[in-house]
């Protein structure tokens, strides 16, 4: 039985559809990310779950309880904002205890819960400080446990890390995941950072222009993108126009060079432009008997730290290949003739 359920949820702002037929079932304790570019409707969907926006149509239930039109302060749903949104006039303890105080919990009970929460984020010594005396990362941790202090049914996070710098971001996202698993709380996490979504989530919802493009585990999303949008948005990808030679066998041509894919074509009716999709890291340098091989000229070489990206011009098509940056690597020079090989399993047609 699914815990959080969105059924045919739509939202239009002044005739502009922001969310279009959104359907999702999340299990108890599941961590689901909404991933998509700016303006695709992630925040709007989250705000409908929190009750800050009303759906134009559709239904939202939590534990079989219809919450679609319940006001936000009666939902028992915890939300963490991008801006932290800590109350500046209250100490950290008062911030965390706020949700308990407003429902009339006793002082001792509030204190106990505040201690538990501070313990969870290891900020026991910051009890009596004010938000402005904390760093951004610390403030966001406080905001997280403030939302959790009321024991919400689900936890919502709207790009909680995007105001922080890269290092803290990685640290804090692991902390969020740890706390989430420790409490077993159903969580919806909005982000436009694919690395965050892939590394944190049980499942990822990829969105574009208000629509759900694909729902799946991080590995499904990355390995088998359902649409061109997902393939391009999640990770790096080469998309090469091909001529179809034999649809059932998945045989195509890149320029004049044959390529075999292990999956049969589903759209090989010739009317659509068919393209070969392959991730840069699936390409290997050199010729390999029995694999797909392509020959071209080195167009550019880019150092990305642990990875080196080589662009190869194959009959007018640019293909990227990623290699680990190892000392023993013999690098080609720009303009060299260069061969790459890849498995039939590694590529697919879309």
């Amino acid at each position: 039985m699914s815990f959080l359920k969105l059924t045919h949820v739509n939202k239009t702002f002044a005739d502009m559809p922001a969310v279009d037929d959104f359907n999702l079932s999340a299990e108890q304790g599941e961590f689901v990310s909404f991933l998509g570019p700016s303006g695709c409707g992630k925040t709007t969907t989250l705000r409908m779950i929190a009750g800050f926006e009303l759906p134009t149509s559709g239904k939202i239930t939590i534990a079989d309880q219809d919450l679609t039109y319940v006001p936000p302060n009666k939902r028992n749903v915890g939300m963490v904002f991008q801006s932290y949104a800590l109350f500046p006039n209250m100490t950290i303890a008062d911030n965390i205890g706020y949700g308990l105080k407003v429902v009339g919990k006793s002082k001792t009970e509030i204190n106990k819960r505040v201690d538990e929460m501070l313990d969870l984020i290891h900020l026991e010594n910051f009890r009596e400080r004010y938000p402005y005396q904390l760093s951004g990362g610390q403030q966001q941790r406080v905001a997280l446990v403030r939302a959790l202090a009321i024991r919400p049914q689900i936890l919502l996070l709207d790009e909680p890390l995007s105001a922080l710098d890269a290092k803290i971001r990685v640290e804090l996202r692991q902390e969020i995941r740890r706390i989430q698993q420790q409490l077993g709380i159903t969580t919806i996490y909005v982000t436009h950072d694919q690395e965050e979504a892939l590394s944190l989530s049980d499942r990822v919802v990829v969105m574009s222009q208000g629509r759900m493009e694909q729902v799946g585990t991080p590995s499904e999303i990355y390995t088998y993108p359902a649409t061109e949008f997902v393939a391009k948005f999640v990770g790096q990808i080469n998309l090469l126009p091909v001529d179809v030679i034999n649809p059932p066998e998945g045989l195509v041509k890149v320029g004049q060079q044959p390529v075999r894919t292990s999956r049969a074509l589903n759209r090989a009716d010739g009317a659509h432009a068919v393209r070969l999709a392959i991730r840069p890291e699936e390409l290997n340098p050199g010729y390999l008997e029995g694999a797909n091989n392509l020959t071209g000229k080195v167009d550019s070489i880019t150092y990305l730290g642990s990875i080196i990206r080589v662009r190869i011009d194959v009959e007018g098509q640019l293909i990227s290949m990623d290699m680990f940056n190892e000392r023993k690597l013999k690098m080609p020079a720009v303009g060299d003739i260069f061969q790459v090989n890849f498995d039939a399993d590694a590529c697919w047609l879309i």
Partner: protein
Amino acid sequence: MENSQTQQVSRRAKILDVLGNWIGVIPFFIFIIVFLILPSMNLFIGAFRDLNGNFTFDNIIGLKDPAILKAYSVSLQVSVITSLVGSVFGFFVAYAITIGKAPKWMRNILMTFSGLAANFGGVPLAFAFIATIGRTGLITAILKNICFSNAAGVQSCPLDIYDNGFTLYGVLGLTLAYTYFEFPLMVLIITPALEGLKRDWREASDNLGASSWQYWRYVAFPVLWPSILGAGLLLFGSAFGAYATAQALTGGSIYLVTILIGQQIRGDVLGNPNLGYALALGMVVIMSITITGYTILQRRTARWLKS
């Protein structure tokens, strides 16, 4: 030898540097000295002198005169009432055009009006009021002519305000006139403060289960409190120090401290400028107490603000 020479040169450069930094504010300091410090000292010294220039406490003791105490009390009353009324009205208007859902054009109109009205004072303001709700004012005349006759054929004109005890030329009229510039002043000052309330705070509060009232009680109001207090003080000060409006409206028939000071200093036979100075000193003391109180309160409520 050479060393000391370079030292001298560098010292001269330093002096020039400092001069360069300060030269721009010199006119300001001259202005302050001539028009604030010197008059204040003159006022302070004058309050402790008799007409022959001898030191005396008579002027200060003279403040205990019942007529003078009454003037202070009226001045305080008018200032407190108008600043309270202005604050409350101004707050709600500012609320409507920021957090409330008032349309944008209304916001623009109200802000422009407030900018004008807050600076409208003195004699023109008094005459504007006289022309509208004075004894022969436009509104007065219109209201006066709204009459009904009952079944017995007896005419009654319930809206004839002067028949019903209203007069513009007393404390009530003064309060009305002061409110006219106080409430837009409040709108101008408090609107930015209300705009500073983040939508996220409201939503976080809702999200944590708080009611609207609880949000205002625990978050919005404490955050706004220093601004409201400051604005209220400014309103109080502007009413407390106003002179021309009251003089023009009531012809000096109502005893405010400022009018009393005017009478003492104007230099007619009855006037005693030194008593005038003492009266002014009293006002300075009252304003100082108010500002000190404000500073203490403000510090206490805003200790969480980044300094």
